[in-house]
């Protein structure tokens, strides 16, 4: 996984200019109180791009890398990051209606998952006018492997980037 190092200012710049279409993860069973809404102040001191690229969505739940093999992760080695952001935009000029869901699991020190299947962190539907940035915050961090799946009734090309950040919580 070659992570491009971008500075904090750069990340914030990219996130801030995403004007519209922030989707909050519904059905997120937030166990701990440190979910985004309650957090007064979070200062990221290290940020890395975990994955970036183009995904051809169709009606099947596809990983951002395009495969439909349920056991394969989209990004590995995400243990150090306590928050993830998935941001991007959908090409084409039809209104966007893309479902996405975030799956996560832990692996042992040899890279083998503790058990089969995934934990579904949350699900969201990106409904924006064409050519708009969207951004999804994934508050549950420190999982080792994440699988982000996208699906859309009408086939679309989605260009997106997954960013992991390490930050200091000031309560």
């Amino acid at each position: 996984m070659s992570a491009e190092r971008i500075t904090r200012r750069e990340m914030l710049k990219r996130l801030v200019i995403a004007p519209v279409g922030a989707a909050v993860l519904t059905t997120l069973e937030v166990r701990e109180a440190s979910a985004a809404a309650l957090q007064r102040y979070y200062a990221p001191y290290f940020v890395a791009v975990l994955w970036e690229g183009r995904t051809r969505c169709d009606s099947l739940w596809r990983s951002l890398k395009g495969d439909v093999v349920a056991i394969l992760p989209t990004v590995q080695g995400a243990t150090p990051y306590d928050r993830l952001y998935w941001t991007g935009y959908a090409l084409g000029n039809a209104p966007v209606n893309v479902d996405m869901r975030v799956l996560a699991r832990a692996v042992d020190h040899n890279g083998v998952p503790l058990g089969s299947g995934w934990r579904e962190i949350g699900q969201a539907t990106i409904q924006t006018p064409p050519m708009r940035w969207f951004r999804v915050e994934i508050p549950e961090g420190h999982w080792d492997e994440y699988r982000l799946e996208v699906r859309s009734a009408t086939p679309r090309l989605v260009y997106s980037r997954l960013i992991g950040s390490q930050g200091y919580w000031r309560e």
Partner: protein
Amino acid sequence: MPKVCLITSNLTRFNKVWTQVLRHLGIDYTLCVATSGGVGATIQTPQGGLAANSTDLRNYFRLFDAVILCDHALTLSETAVINYSVYWLSWNAPEDPPFLFFNPHFSTAITESAYNSNFPSDFPIVRPNPSDLAGTLYAADGGSPSAFTPLFTGAAAARGACVLFLAENIRAHVMTVCNAHGASRTANVVPYYWRLNPTQHSTLANTNYTHRVARNGRAGEILAVPAPPTNPEDTETYPSDCVVAYRYRNIFWLPHTIRSFFDTMNLHSWYTLGNWTPMLFWLLYGLQLAGVRPRYRLPVQMETDHPIESGANTPPFNFSYRQQMEALLAKHDYMREFARRTGTAIIHGVRVGGRHRTTSASFHWQMMYGTGVPADARAVAQQINQLLVAGHREGTTPCGVHDHTAGNFQGGYWLGDVRAGFRRHSGMRYGAPANVPISRGRCCVAPHVLPAGVAPPNALTVQVGDAEMVEWDHTMSGTGDTFDLPLGNIHAARIVIESEIEEMLALGFPDGHCAGHKYTNTAANASGGECYWQALKEFGFRGVRSASACNEPHRTKRVVSNRLWHGFHLITDAGFDLAHPSAGYSRGLYYPDSPSEGDGVRHWQLDHGNDISANWTTSAVAAWRAYRRVVCQGIGNWLFTTAVVLGGFYIHLGTQLMIISLSDPNARFNGWSVQNVIGHPHYNHAVELLENMDAVVRLLSDVLYWGTITDVMDHRERVLEG
């Protein structure tokens, strides 16, 4: 870096020992998950889901040096475990990788027609039939059922086997279960060996076949068979068509190795007895046969505790002190010569504390100089000590401190809050009459925030790990040599360790930490806690052997999670004595009226179906059966300690001291033909373990070598997480 492909159908039950062993050998791996055990399963690989019989999958497998099937059945009546692998039996081109099958499920109970039709017709091993066991299999190891199942054998309850490896012409004691079957999956299951179809084997053996794993250039090769007995007493023989391991073209049919279960590799390397995998040999042998050259070879080494130890009264043997010392002298002579021959170093933990803190004859110093011990025994004890000092200097038998008197008599470091009446050495830095602190200061403050003028002039700066503190107001020792010593602080640790080293120097050893290895094994594997590790580092140690709960029986501390504390190693302990400590010493492989857990068979639960205790005195084969099971359990646990735990395998010499024949103490086991003083079979524990492991090391020359504890610590630094 070689790379293998592991195939399983259930991630939850995939045993993490597979990946831990491959990591320690430096073999890269890809884990592929089949969607089911049936013929139509899809193999989910990083390249996507590939059908089991597809050419894509065959080409994908060609990327690897070997393909390993990790799932196995519990009984022969299951219908679908690895049925998807039937197509791969006919992928025999030279570019195809070797396939390693361990305890493969190919019984006639499989009903899927695609499996039976694709099963190669010229396959030379008879397919096991759960309803005709006698006709298709040979019952192994006496045929009695294990109480649970032999496939889940952990640190105990082994099944014995002596296997002859034909090409290498080596006899080795390794636990061997080709298939297993019982009415229920996990109760009263019997181990079996396979039956060969001689005609089909002879056609295969005469068919030319070119593949890098075909050593003899033929399509079929018998790899291993049950070894013929070496003594007519041993009536457990198998017919000529009984086979244990076979190569069919590039397919290896091998016995059971690692159970499929929820076992994870705990970083503490704290292992419940259940999740040991003593049949690990077959994975290592399979990798070597498949030509997967590991990047690292694993060092094999052994340790002993208490090189000089004795018991006052020792029924039923009733050895005098002198006879016990002579028996020990013979063992030390043999071990020194063995270490010289193979280049290993056998670490000894000298039982210190006898000079200052006890007069019990079972301590090293008392055995040499104690007036309670007769002079002739003392002379032999001093002879042993000279042998140990010479071995320490030449590197064959390095000795280190091992103190059972630092807490109370049971164990090692930090065994309670206070050790009453601790008597220290004199001289050196912390000995009498030096007035040194013996407890943590009343106030300790970090130096960078300490206000000026608060700390009195006699304040000390103490560093333990990262924490540096200025301490003042200590309880002091005074100038006397006996006082109550609070155990949980670095000052007490320094006093205790220095007194142990002082005794080692007085015994004639140049140091107390096994010469260049800078290591020792701690009493009762109690390595104390951070303050003892820091003190040991200060005295020049690089590591010690330690249990996971490292101040037993006080039980307030545990080792750090990856057993590496600021560069200080905490090596996992793995003991293998033929008696429980509560029984004092071992009465032999088996002894009809020994106390509970007082002999090897009782302590390691090896009396399967009472086929040893019921006829110990009536039929001689029971002695051979006991010998095979004890040695297979020992070698199995030792291999697990070497390959998975990277730990310290050790025995107590004194525990198995008296079950030898006095006329020929270092003789090899020979059933009732060589007897000990009470007329039961002679058995020398050190000789049998070392010689049998030497056979395994010679057999697995690509994977193992006789190394030292320094090699183990170096390897831990290489492969364990930092």
